[in-house]
Structure formats: C-alpha cells, structure tokens
C-alpha cells in the first residue's frame, strides 16, 4: 500500500508545530508528542497497516478544532481525523508528516428531544452510548455496526456505517438529521437540524460517508426511533447455498422486509458452533437467521408466513423463537462469528462487497475456486437482506507471503463483485484498503468528478490524503475546462 511520501521538512519541525498547536488548545494534554504515546494511534481496525503520526491533537471544543484546522490550512499541514479508530478500511491510518485530529474528548450527549424524535450528540459519543441514553424511554438509535460498543458516532458519519438492520432501518445517512462541521480553513458550518428537509444542495448527504476527506464533524443530530415492541427470529437450515438464497428472495418477494436477515455458510456455521455451542445444525450447508420486529400482531403474522416460505424453499431445519432468550441464542453464534474465526486461524481478513442477492451462488462458487487457487480458507457471513457479503479469509501473518495472497484473494472478490453488478464496499468504506480498486468500479471521469467535489471542500488536499482515491490531482488541474471560445457551435439537432 503506497502512501504519499512523508515530507522530512515537516517531520523535522515536529516540536515547533507541537508548541504552536498547544497554544491553540486549552487543555494541557491536548497535544501528544512523545514517541510512545503516539504509537497508540499508529493503526485502526485494519491493523495490517501502521504509521506513526507526526503529532496527535485532542481538541475539546469546536473553536479549538476550528483554530487547529485553520493553522494546518495556513501551514500546509496534513490532517487525519479520528473517532474511536475502529475503521476496517484504514480510514484513520495516520501519516508520518500529518497530525491525527482525535475527537475523543467530544463525548457528551448535548440534548435528547423525544418529542422531535432526535438527539444532539458530540461526535465522540459511542454508537451504543446513544441507545444506552434513551432506551429507558423506549427509544434507540437504529444503525448498529458490530463495533457499536466502541465506535463513535462521528466515525459512523464519516464511514456511513451500517449493521444488521440496514435493509429495514437504513444506514447512518438515513438516520442523521444535522451536523456541525469545520472546513479545513476553520470555517464552522451547520447543516440540517431537527427538521427533515433542508433545501439547497444536500451537503449533509455528501458529508456522510466522505471518510474524513471533506470536513471535520463536531456535532451530530441523529434520529431516534421507538424500539419495536416485539422481535422474534427463525433459525433455518438449508441443504445448499442456492436454496437458502432462494428463500431470501422469496421472503422479500412476498412483501416482507425483516429487521435482520443473516446467512452463514458451512465453514462459518462450524466455526461458531465449535466456539459458542449455539445449537446450530451441523448437517446443513447454509443457515439463515430471519428476525422480524415490530408490533406483536405483525411479528406473529409474519413469522408464520416466513416459516411457510422456508419450508417451501426446502429448509431442512426450522426453529422459531418463542422467547427473547431463544431469539438471542439464535443470534449468539452469528454475533460471535468474527471471534470464532479468530479462534481457528491466527489472522483473518474481512471483505465487504455488496452483490445483487441473486448472484450469491455465483459468488460463492467463485470464492471456492479462489480458495483453492490461493490455498487459503474462507468462511462467509452475509447480510442476506441487503446483499452485503463478508467473506472472512483465514491466513497467518507469520507465513511469509500469506498476507499478500490474502489481499489478492480479497481484491479478486471485490473485482468480481463489481463485475456481477455489485460494489466494492457495502459498509466498511474504501479507506486505504480498497483505494487502488476504485478504478474497477469507476471510470477516470467518474473519479475526477468526485475529486472536484473534494476540491470544493478542501482545495489544498490536506484532509486525510492517501485515502479513497488512487491518485492525487491538483485542484487547479482538475478544474481546467477545455473549450474553444466562439468556435464550438450548438450541434445541428432538431430545434423547436
């Protein structure tokens, strides 16, 4: 993974810059300069990549963020924004000649407004922290990435995080009403608020999922939802991946949108059963967990309907939860899937494409071929409802070339996903990890248009450089328009 060449002159000025930044922030511990303490920030959830940042700055207020960014803008200093550092795509991977701007001190819930069904929170609040603050009143915050105990809402906004309930309740972008943000020149802006529709360009929509490349978010207004009053789940075993996939399509085709619909293939089933003894059937090729949530009358009605569909689709093992304990037991295995894989392999690498659901059998077949080709095992967990597939490639980083083979394996999966009508990333983001594959999904023109948008926010390219886009361009060059004044005529089309 090639990152921009660090600027030795900037690194040489570390102490002077640290002194300047200390003057901009009130707290005595706002700037981290020592080698040891900076090491704590050298990676995120994608631990294969590491870099020690120039400095870490932990501002406490929007004004401090504004002053720090204005300073960086003036001095041409690169900035890597960081929430909780749980990114799986290297979104918070530091730069040796850039500061890490950590938002950890922004950890307060500012307002809970049940009547307008929203909460105003600082970006360092954890995803689960929002739900924890409102669940006593029967509310929750819907997107639930599996890192939700640790990941911050600011990071969720940057990555447009998802979770297992996306199909019914949407991703982060569908659940954020407003933000306060700071541009690289220090300008503070507010977008949206407690109202639903804001006019003008949907800059909020662009900010969500922009991976820290456009601006730094300092406050978030999220939607709160009333917690569904009932939830029940079915645990369905199938003799083939095809029949499980057909069942998913039949459920959706019958007009049913489950709160969660998760699939596991045989290697994943066995790994989790060995680990947590969830009582999963071991004689099936694929397992489906279908959770229906909502008012009890609806849940009971749909449970019956899904059960009938599953039987019609050839399910050989059908269990229906009759209590919350039973429902949670169904989920226990799925939720432990990653650690279960971690138990049977020294390392694993999680891929994140979304594919058209109908292509699942093709994708699984292709992955079996790749598994043979690269000599690496793969287990699959699948957000079957929305088509977001998480192949877990098992490898051992201590073997000389296994990481490289794993990355090639992952890249082949992602390229194939695009080929069959899917995308590179469903919820983990591009970051550094998928950066060099962007060209498989987007043409040069597509990417240049995205880069021009970046220029509208950050003309100097100082925010999170080296992420998302495979090539850096100068904004002036991107903005150039090739026209020949007075020479181009309107084409000779029929006029009316």
């Amino acid at each position, binding site marked *: 993974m090639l990152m921009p060449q660090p600027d030795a002159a900037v690194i040489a000025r570390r102490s002077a810059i640290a002194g300047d930044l200390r003057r901009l922030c009130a707290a005595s511990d706002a700037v981290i300069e020592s080698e040891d303490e900076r090491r704590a920030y050298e990676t995120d959830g994608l631990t294969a990549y590491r870099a020690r940042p120039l400095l870490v700055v932990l501002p406490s207020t929007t004004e401090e963020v504004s002053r720090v960014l204005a300073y960086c803008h003036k001095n041409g200093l690169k900035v890597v924004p960081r929430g909780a550092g749980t990114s799986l795509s290297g979104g918070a991977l530091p730069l040796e000649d850039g500061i890490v701007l950590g938002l950890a001190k922004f950890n307060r819930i500012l307002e809970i407004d049940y009547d*307008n069904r929203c909460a105003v929170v600082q970006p360092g609040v954890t995803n689960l922290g929002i739900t924890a603050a409102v669940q006593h009143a029967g509310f929750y915050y819907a997107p639930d990435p599996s890192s939700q105990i640790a990941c911050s809402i600011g990071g969720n906004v940057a990555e447009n995080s998802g979770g297992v309930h996306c199909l019914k309740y949407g991703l982060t972008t569908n659940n954020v009403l407003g933000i306060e943000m700071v541009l690289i020149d220090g300008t503070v802006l507010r977008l949206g608020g407690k109202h*639903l529709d*804001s006019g003008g360009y949907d800059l909020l929509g662009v900010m969500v999922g922009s991976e820290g490349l456009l601006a730094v978010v300092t406050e978030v207004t999220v939607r709160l939802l009333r917690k569904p009053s009932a939830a029940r789940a079915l645990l369905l075993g199938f003799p083939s991946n095809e029949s499980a996939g057909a069942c998913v399509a039949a459920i959706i085709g019958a007009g049913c949108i489950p709160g969660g619909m998760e699939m596991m293939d045989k290697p994943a089933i066995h790994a989790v059963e060995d680990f947590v003894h969830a009582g999963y059937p071991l004689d099936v090729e694929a397992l489906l967990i279908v959770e229906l949530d909502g008012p009890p009358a609806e849940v009971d009605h749909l449970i019956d309907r899904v059960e009938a569909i599953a039987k019609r689709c050839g399910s050989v093992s059908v269990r229906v939860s009759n209590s919350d304990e039973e429902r949670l037991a169904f989920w226990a295995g799925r939720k432990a899937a990653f650690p279960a894989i971690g138990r049977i392999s020294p390392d694993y690498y999680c891929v994140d494409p979304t594919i058209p659901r109908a292509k699942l059998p093709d994708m699984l077949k292709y992955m079996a071929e790749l598994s043979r080709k690269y000599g690496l095992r793969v287990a699959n967990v699948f957000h079957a409802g929305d*088509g977001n597939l998480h192949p877990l490639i098992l490898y051992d980083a201590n073997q000389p070339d296994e990481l490289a083979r794993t990355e090639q394996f992952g890249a082949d999966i992602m390229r194939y996903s695009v080929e069959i*009508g899917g*995308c590179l990333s469903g919820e983990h983001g591009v970051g550094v990890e998928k950066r060099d594959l962007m060209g498989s999904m*987007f043409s040069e023109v597509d990417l240049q248009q995205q880069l021009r*948008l970046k220029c*509208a926010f950050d003309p100097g390219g100082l925010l999170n450089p080296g992420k998302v886009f495979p090539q850096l361009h100068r904004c002036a060059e991107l903005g150039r328009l090739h026209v020949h004044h007075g020479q181009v005529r309107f*084409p000779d089309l029929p006029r009316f």
Partner: protein
Amino acid sequence: MSQYRPADEKQLIDVVAASVANEEPLEIVAGGSKRNLGRPPQLPHMLDVGVFAGIRQYEPEELVLTAGAATPLAEIERTLVAKRQMLAFEPPDWRMLLGTDAANSTFGGVVACNLSGPRRIRQGAARDHVLGLAAVSGRGEAFKAGGRVVKNVTGYDLCKLLTGSYGTLAVMTEISVKVLPAPEATRTVALTGLDDPRAVAAMTHGLNSPHEPSGAAHLPDAGGHARTLLRVEGPLPSVEARSQALRDELKPFGAAEILGDVDSAKLWQGIRDAAPLAAGEGVIWRVSLAPTAAPAFLSAVRAALDVDYFLDWGGGLAWLAVRGADDGGAAPIRAALGGRGHATLIRASAALRAAVPVFEPLPPAVAALSARVKDSFDPKRVLNRGRLYPEI
C-alpha cells in the same frame, strides 16, 4: 429561445459542451410538470431530455429499479404496482398545485426536486432511496455515481447531492432506486376538533407509540371541523391491531374513528398533493421545521397574515396558502421560522418567485460552499442557472 432535443447521450454531451463554449445556459425539461417550481430561470435555451425514458431493469426481489430519468412517474408506478411494490417515499403529484395538469411528471423530476410525501417520516425522502445514477455534468462529461445495490459506501454519495439539486449540477439520464413492498392494508385513525397545539401533541403521542404510524397530518378545516389523522400500514392483522391500539392510546385526545383502505388512500393522496390548498387562491409555501415548533410558528404566521394551512409529518411540515401580502408572506414566514427550518415558495407568479427567495436563504458560509460545489460540476453555470439561487 431554441430548444434542443438530443437523441442520445452523445448528442446530450454535444449540447452541453456547446452551451459551455458559448456560455449560454440551458433550462432542462422532461415532462415539464415542474417548470413553475423554483426561481424562474429565463434562460436562452431549453434542453429537452425526453429521450432518456423507459424502464431499463426491474428486479422486484432485489428491490431495485433502474429507469431513464424522463420515464413518466405513472409508468414506474404502474410497473411497481403489478409486483405489489412502491416508491416508499411517496412522490407527490403537484400538477394541480402548480397548474400543469396536462404535463407529465417524470422520475427524474421527482428526484431532481427531492419530493417526498407523508411517508417521509417513516421511510425517508427521495434522497434516501436513490442508489445510483448516470448523468452529464456541466462540463459536458458523462459520469456515474453509486450503483445498483441497496447498500453501498464506495466513493462520495453524489446521488444525494444530485437529488434535490434542481438540475443545477448535472443532467441526469438514468436513475436506480430502492423500491419496497407496498402495504397490504391501510387504516387511518381520525381525531376531530383539536386545535393546533393539541393536534401536534396527539401526533407526537402517536408517533412516539410503538404502533408505527406511517403518516401524521392535521387538517384544521376539513369540512367545517379540524381532523387529525394518523395512518398505519402493513399486513391486515397488523393494521387492525395497531389502528385499534392507536385509537386507545389517543383517547386523551378524544374519540377517534378508524377509516378503511379506500377512504385512507383518498385522504393521504390529497395530503401528499397538498389538495386542501391547491384548489384555492393564494401563494403557497411548504415549510419544513421541527414538529414541536409548529404550533408557535403557525400562531405567529396567522397573527401576521391571512392564511390557510395544514400540517403533515407530525407537524414537521406546514403547508400555507397566503392571501394579500406583497411579498407573498416571505418576511413574516421566515421571521417566524427564525432560521430553524426551511420555507420554500412552491406556488406563486413568476414575478414573485423572482422577487423573493424561493428557497430558504443560506448562511454565508453554506452559500459559499454551495457555490464551490456548483462550480465543481458546472463551472460555467450553464445548467438551470438561477433556478435554485441567483447565479447558481
């Protein structure tokens, strides 16, 4: 004024490139049903994109539909109904409201204006359903954004940016949207005789209940009395149980009746299309605000203006019909809103739409960023210049 009607994407690129070279802006038109919406642009050329029509791909089980931007909305809805699916954001039909009854409302028009109906509170806006698109920028370059799958975070979300941009950034040629199953049954719980504060309180109570309403509106003058309406949708056993539970829940607000499928469909279509105000006289505004702010907002507006109104989105959307104010009521409405929401002038003469800001004026820093965003797509500002904001 000349009108260009490119036959394919290549010709579309040529037209945009020529307008860039000559610096002569284009007004983009498909069905023409929303030509009276937004600022009156008065541009030298018209670009008719009607050729980019037709459903390209529809896979009900994938919940994805792809169609040309100029596809009539009616055609898309017919196709979806046949598979018992829908555009869940409930796109409104404003032709009566805007006096363009004879024109066709198109898919691209609804997306370009980010128009959503009563279900917005539960299922999101048009912007929440656009998955991917193909377009030609104001640089005369064809590009695509997003994809054809329902969960995708690859690259910037340009789909959100183009949705609601009123054609000022790019000419959309093809759009993919997420579609959802249509509800099997609908009931409406109807309360009568509530004043605005009580009505908003009742709607809040209903929306905060576990009965999952998909619509909450208040009509202060529905045939001589006020009606406050909450809609529930879903499978039949579910809507029957929920509508009854909701009626019980709302007892403190008075006795409620429950309306069935047919009455509900008619009622919510009217609310969606602003029918209670569309037939009357007056300048029409649509105001997005925090739901609980609605009563105070309405009382301030009513003190200053001769106005009819109704509420949707549980109070979060106020529709106003203003009579007899020189500025159409812009000053008192925006003063009452106090920057905490967005007031849009939906129906007014071209002269009034040129004289007062149609869209909520932006704070200077947001306006400056918006102008830079415009320039990143359309540096010569040839696409629908002036439609959204002056010079944008």
